[in-house]
């Protein structure tokens, strides 16, 4: 999505608000999820984004998909993907992964030359894997906690850390900013990229519709897990407080029918956590 100055200013204001909020709200709102103390606010932004998407971006992307043939759309996607690899490489270096960083720069070099300026992803065909890094992940690697979940207007799911990283750093690390000094051309690039990305999401969208009982919380929980997974490059350590796998709830699995004598209520504050490898 493009980032008109108004959107950025709004995002920055919201971040300030959110940060102020954390200082006073504490980690856990009443009855809410600890990672989402701003849930009422987030839900309203989520609805706003959703309505905006339905009114504007989705119909435009549908039209784009109908009018532009698929090979051309692939080229558009590859072109923006190639630009994104530059910033990914920079973040790899910032995260202390020079090997991965140079692999990403190598991808850019290959795709920019043999891939005709990036419209063909030759590097992937050669087996040089594409990665996905941004400054929010870099902060995570440096040990900055994610902070509460935050839905940004226009940009969707984020956290206080990732939102701040996006507004303050990622936006300026976007090669589109460097590519041209013409605001008009830059905005065209943003718009095209937004449409391209949106058009890739139709399938995912119907999946979300069908898989979630509550789209808001499903998106939040999946996004936070995915984000943490990204920070640890696919291998996050187990959470200390997670009790998703306690045998607490499985009293009848091994000895059927024993639950009647059990006085645990199941929502005890600190159920025993299983030892995991």
């Amino acid at each position, binding site marked *: 999505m493009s980032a008109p100055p108004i959107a950025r200013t709004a995002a920055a204001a919201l971040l300030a608000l959110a940060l102020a909020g954390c200082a006073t709200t504490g980690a856990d709102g009443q009855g809410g999820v600890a990672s989402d103390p701003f849930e009422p606010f987030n839900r309203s932004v989520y609805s706003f984004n959703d309505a905006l998407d339905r009114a504007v971006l989705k119909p435009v992307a549908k039209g784009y998909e109908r009018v532009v043939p698929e090979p051309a759309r692939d080229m558009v996607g590859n072109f923006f*993907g190639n630009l994104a690899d530059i910033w*990914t490489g920079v973040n790899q270096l910032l995260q202390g992964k020079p090997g991965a960083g140079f692999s990403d720069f190598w991808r850019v070099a290959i795709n920019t030359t043999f891939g005709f300026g990036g419209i063909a992803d030759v590097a992937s065909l050669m087996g040089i894997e594409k990665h996905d890094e941004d400054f929010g992940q870099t902060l995570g690697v440096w040990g900055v906690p994610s902070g509460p979940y935050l839905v940004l207007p226009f940009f969707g799911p984020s956290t206080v850390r990732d939102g701040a990283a996006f507004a303050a750093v990622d*936006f300026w690390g976007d090669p589109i900013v460097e590519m041209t000094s013409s605001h008009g051309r830059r905005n065209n690039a943003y718009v095209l990229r937004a449409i391209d990305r949106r058009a890739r999401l139709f399938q995912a969208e119907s999946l979300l519709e069908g898989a979630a009982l509550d789209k808001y919380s499903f998106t939040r929980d999946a996004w936070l897990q995915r984000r943490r997974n990204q920070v640890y490059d696919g291998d996050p350590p187990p959470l200390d407080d997670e009790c*998703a796998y306690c045998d607490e*709830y499985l009293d009848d699995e091994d000895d059927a029918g024993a639950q009647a004598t059990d006085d645990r209520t199941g929502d005890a504050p600190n159920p025993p956590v299983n030892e995991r490898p």
Partner: protein
Amino acid sequence: MNEHRRFRLAETRAPHLPLRRRLMSAALAAGALALGAGLGFAPAPVLAEESPDALIERVGNELIRLIADDEAIKRGDMGAINRLVDEKVMPYVNFERMTALSAGRWWREATPEQRKQLMTEFRNMLLRTYSGALEQVGNQTLRMKPLRAQPGATDVIVRSEIVQPGREPIQLDYRMHKVGDGWKIYDLNILGIWIVETYRSQFNQEAQRTGVDGLIRSLADKNREFGPGKGSQGT
């Protein structure tokens, strides 16, 4: 729908965008293989002491082959998909444990009949969600990551990737526990998102509002609404 674009979703960098959608597309792309490699596996006549990662590798590769060769499955024929899952997947899955963990404390409160219904609806929901991605199964291969488990461990995480030419690999991890002398899967991670963890709060949120019966009803409604032929299944 072409697999190329769909898989590109997983790798396209889009930090400024509704990430949830990219996530979900990635999950969808992985779903085919999740089904294949993921939801479970039946200890066919195997060696008694097959290690958990060897099991995943064997069954995963078999499923990729079976799905790639089966037009009905790739078309999203739920009958064919259900048969495949029953025969080749469920024997390696402890789906009761998976459902119980997802239901959390509500599992304790559920009657045996409710538990059965919950398992049925949950299974249908997962199959429905991921079956749309099966058409993309073709020339993928499974790449196993080293298993880090203590000797004698009875609960492990098996880590793997689906490798596809020219695209970003799809992370696929499994939580498995030892049952008798075999291993069973009880949770699946696609691109960093665990099914149990994700559905745990979905189920809890719904059950808190409407109880176990309400939760079962919501799942059933969802399954009817987005069932086969209702247009949510991709192509």
